[in-house]
């Protein structure tokens, strides 16, 4: 059992409570080409297939039975460069995560263990179900004063930041005599927006259009007639296509 492996993952068994059947979690040592601060080499365990009801706190408790855990990070799905795959598992509640041990020994030890202790024994007030929802509801009822305090503080911070920005934005003439043109000031520049760009293009086109003559030369008249015909033809074709589809659906059966 201890040596059961899938790809380069090791299978470890986990139970929610002692009555349950064991369940398979896949673990391996985390390896990465680039160094990340929160996932130190040698001490980080990559865990896959964590069931939805296990949160970070529980996960940490679960793995702490081997040795003390420094940090735990959970994420939906499996980290992948493939966007499409990421999309596919969006409604999948099974997660993967990183467990960082304090010492490498713990990591080595867990690689030799096949079964973890049931979760319920480690943490007997796991919040799930009705009670969790009730608590969630109660937490969503706010005290108005607190709320007001918080909002005011946030706005204050924002205001200060704005002020600083405003100061920066004032027209400045640099050493060599260049002036930065901003939206404010005496000679404001045009806003650099897409809509402005489009408007400019439009104007240009209108000007062009005015210059050309339409339905003036015989060939143009001929052309427009031909276009009309082509239009009719196209409608006809489209109608035909639609009919074909309807026929495929066996719609023409008035009985």
């Amino acid at each position, binding site marked *: 059992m201890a040596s059961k492996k899938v790809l380069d993952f090791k299978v470890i068994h986990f139970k929610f409570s002692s009555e349950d059947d064991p369940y398979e979690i896949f673990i391996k040592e985390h390896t990465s080409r680039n160094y990340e601060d929160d996932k130190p080499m040698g001490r980080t365990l990559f865990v896959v297939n964590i*069931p939805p009801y296990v949160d970070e706190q529980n996960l940490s408790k679960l793995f702490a039975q081997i040795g003390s855990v420094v940090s735990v990070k959970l994420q939906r799905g499996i980290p992948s460069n493939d966007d499409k795959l990421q999309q596919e*598992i969006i409604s999948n509640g099974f997660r993967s995560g990183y467990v960082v041990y304090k010492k490498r020994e713990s990591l080595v030890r867990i690689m030799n263990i096949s079964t973890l202790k049931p979760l319920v024994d480690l943490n007997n007030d796991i919040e799930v179900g009705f009670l969790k929802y009730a608590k969630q509801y109660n937490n969503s009822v706010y005290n108005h004063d607190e709320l007001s305090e918080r909002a*005011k503080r946030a706005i204050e911070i924002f205001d200060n930041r704005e002020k600083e920005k405003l100061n920066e934005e004032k027209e400045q003439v640099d050493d060599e005599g260049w002036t930065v043109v901003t939206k404010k000031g005496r000679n404001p520049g045009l806003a*650099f927006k*897409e*809509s402005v760009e489009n408007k400019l293009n439009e104007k240009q086109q209108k000007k062009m259009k005015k210059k050309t003559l339409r339905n003036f030369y015989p060939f143009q008249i001929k052309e427009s007639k031909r276009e009309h015909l082509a239009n009719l033809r196209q409608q006809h074709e489209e109608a035909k296509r*639609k009919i074909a589809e309807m026929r495929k659906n066996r*719609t023409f059966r008035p*009985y």
Partner: protein
Amino acid sequence: MDVDMSDGDTDESIKGDTIDRPSKRHNTSESSVGKKKQKFKQPTVEELNDLHETQTLFNNNLFRLQISELLEATKIKNKYNERLTSWINEFQLFLGILPVHDPINISNFSSKAANRPSRDLRFIKNITSHCKNNLRCDQDISVLFVRPNCMSTFGLFKIGSLPGPHLKINLQLTIPKECFHVKDFLNNRYLVKKFYYLMYIAEHLKSQNICSSIKCSYYQDSILLPHLVVVPSNAEKVFVNIFVVPEQNYFKGHRFLPYVNNVKVPVFEQDLPMGVENNFGEMPTKYYNSALGFDVTLVENIVFIEQTISHLTNVQEGLKLIIVWMNQRKLNEGMGTFHEDIVIYIIVYLVFKKKINNHMSSYQVFRNFLNFMITTNLTKDPISICENITEEVIQQFNSAFDVVIIDRTGYYNVAAFLNASVYFKMRYECQLAFSILDQDTLNSFSNLFLVNIPFHLQYDGIIDIKSDNNFETVLQNVDTNEKAAYLGHHYFLIIKILQSYLKRGLNKRVLNIVPLVPSLQMWDYGVRQKLINHRIIFGIQLDPDSAFDILEYGPNLNDPGDTDFREFWGRLSSNRRFRDGTAKVVVHFDTKTIKEQREIIKNIIDFILTDKLNLNYKFYYNEFEDVLLNKRINAWYPVGTNEETSLKIIRSSDKLGQKIRSLGVQLSISGIGGISDVYCYTNVFPPVPTSYRSGKSITTTRDHNIILKEKKLNAAPKYVEPIECAIYLEHSSKWPTDLDALHHMKILLYLEISKLLFKNYKIVSSVKPSFIDVLYDGTIFRYTLFVSKEVGLLKKSVKANGALIYRDTEKSLELEKKFTILPKIIGALKGMQAQFPCYGISTCLAKRWIRSQLIDDYLFPDMIINLLNAQQFISQSLYTAATTPQVAFLRFLKYIIDVTWDLEPIVINFNNELTREQISNVDTQMRINRDKYPPLFILTPYDNGDSIFTKKAPSKQVLVRLKLLAAECLDVVANIVLNESLYSIKELFIPNINGFNCVLHLRSLINPRRHERILNVETDGKVPFSEPTKEAEENMPVIDFDPVQMYLKELRINYGAFCVFFHDTYGGNFIGVLWNPKELEPRNIKVSYMLGRKVENDKLILDKEEIIRGFHILGKDILKSIDNNT
């Protein structure tokens, strides 16, 4: 070529300017067309003509092609034509060798048959034993059986207008004049002879092997016009109707004019339960005459019809279209119907009058027919195809019959058996068809010719007077004249009398009461025929303007007619004085709710049919509404269906809105709009305004909020649904340019509103980070501030060249959807409710039904139901708007079945704001790029052609399933109405627990909407809702707390990839789970597949046990048990 290219270029750039997405898709196709244009083929003359013709002779291209496709599909196959010709040859041979029998007197039929069986007598014995007919006459006439003179086919088939593939061919045999006496038209003698002659044919046909079945039936349900219906042995599915008629001009035609009497003595006793007097003297027997008239004039008429139409192929095709259209709407079925022959005569008349000709396309013939029907009133202005008929005779016909269309001979009214109401119904349908043609929408063609509309969807109510009734009371006061007129056709008389009773009772409330009497059943030759009583069915079409008036005005007191009125209404009538000083006899209906108001119709009909006429009947009208009553609720005001509560909430909302506006908040409020379903009356169970108190066992209070006790909590308080509204603020440049700061600014505003509301009005409220809940008049209103800048901020991003761009993001779309598009649509729907008061309730029925099929908001959002049901009221393309919720709901089901969401966008064109070009543009684009559009695409004027409500749901599977379910449901209803099945309608709304891989049973106590379930036994305790009082409005209740929904949401988030969850939103006590079949397949071992799977035999397979354990763990205290059926 050069010009071509540049043209294409400018075209493209112009298109490119518009920003909305569909046109961009358009762009790509345009350029591909542009490429084609380069290889311009010179048109042939033929093509030019074709295109030209389409423009002038048809509605449009599609319509033309559809018509030709339809005509092709209904063409009679050559195979059948050949078989038929060969069969007719065979039949002719059979007639040639038909045995001839000696004349025999009727009185001898039974006596002689007993002893010595000779060949003749065996025959007589057979026919007498087979057909104990009720036909009698005054004399002991002698019957002669000799071969018929000649034979010919006639009818739709003959003139090439019969839509296949169900073939019906009429055949006419002429009885030689030796068989008759000149006076045989009197006293039923002719009819008796004819009947035996028909039996004679049948009896000998039976001994031959050329027919697989021989039946008898009645032409236009007149028992005086029997004919044979045989099925040729070489062609099943083909019916040959064999008529026998006397030789042309043998009887004098004027004997059959409506004022002539042809029956002197009672010969119809058996089938006339009306106590016939001994002598009719000279009283006109118009129906008897008409029946004979049909036989006598048949040959001349069919010859004329053939002459007129047989060479006009376009007219024939037009006629075929009319027949197809009528078939789809069941306009030519049953007693007193608008028979196909009437249509033929009208077409002949139009050709005769040169109103249609062969230069017209079939489409134009159809259109002209409709136009003729609409513009003429045949009840007032009779028409005739007889050339030498005097005005006087026409007037005689006109006074005798409802509708008059005189035939070629001038002696027979083709529409004699047509009921006036049926005629008006037909006219009404013509009008509708005409408007459909003019609407010229995407599917006007299929609405006209391809959608089959059963009659119970065409009327607001169906009265079914059962066949076991005795109509003596009905016929009590009929005078002899009338009886004489209806001799042999007493059912026509009964129908007429019932109609007049109903019409008098319902008065202005109805537009039309149409008899829909099922045809007499055909009976097999050889089986003794039983005279079965008819069920008499009426379809009633209500007048939406006055159907539900609570007062029925009679005449002024002491006016003539006042006793008459009192007599008719009996106990219901009363005297009333009005404000203007007049006093009238009236009938007042006491109603407390709108539902009761709708029941006025039911009460009136019950009064007439039960109290006055003592008839056993059933009325299909509002049985479905029962499922919308929340019977376990004990409210402090009268509650029916949702209207009362919705109205209360909307009123409170208006009042509260005014108060909020008057608060003087920093930024002035520019508008407040409702975005909940309640505002358009489509919330099935809107929250009943009530007072909220903190209970001892499960709740406690904090600040001024009722919250849940966290210890030993084992039940949820009843559900309090917040009514959502949006507050629009005046534009201001002062809003911060940072999302987070903006949110906090909004919170401060909420808090200010909350403070002021309490200070000025003592109204409590509770602020959450993204909205404010206000308790007012016992209802919770949830207001959200909408700042348009927020949308801009969410959209903002920077382009590669540094320019600022605004692009839709998921969040910005969500915000726009909720606060700019939704209010518009809710507003439009609210307007619709005002215009069509049954819109709301019918939508509720649709919702309740869909939810009870365990398809909830996640799978099929509420808003889509609102929109889809709005469709029937906006387009009115199959029927005019319904007046009662039930029929609107049934039509909704029908729509779900018929709608081709896979081929076309669903157009819900509020106020006709979308132009035809816009619609057809989307339609074309969708056809080209079907995969880019969601399975269901709804085009409304308000969401820039994005169909924002259908983006995530419903899926194709749900749509397909719903279609199946709707078909099943309509079938059941059809069975109830048509076949008198006793199935309970309620059961259509009871969720089905079978067929799931896994069923999660929920604990009832944690379900805050449990009282909405349908299966409730009524003895269950009632949930009291007391009137809100000021004292009770101190605390905010527990709002929007539904553990079942929370659980469902959590399940979907976590396991939505592996399985689909089904639940009945309205109090459902279980959740059904289906595994996603794709996920059940074993996968190769790969890291990306490892989630939720386990290893078995070197493959990854779905770990069902673990997932089910997950259901258990997440559903702690919510689940009662899990049935695992896998």
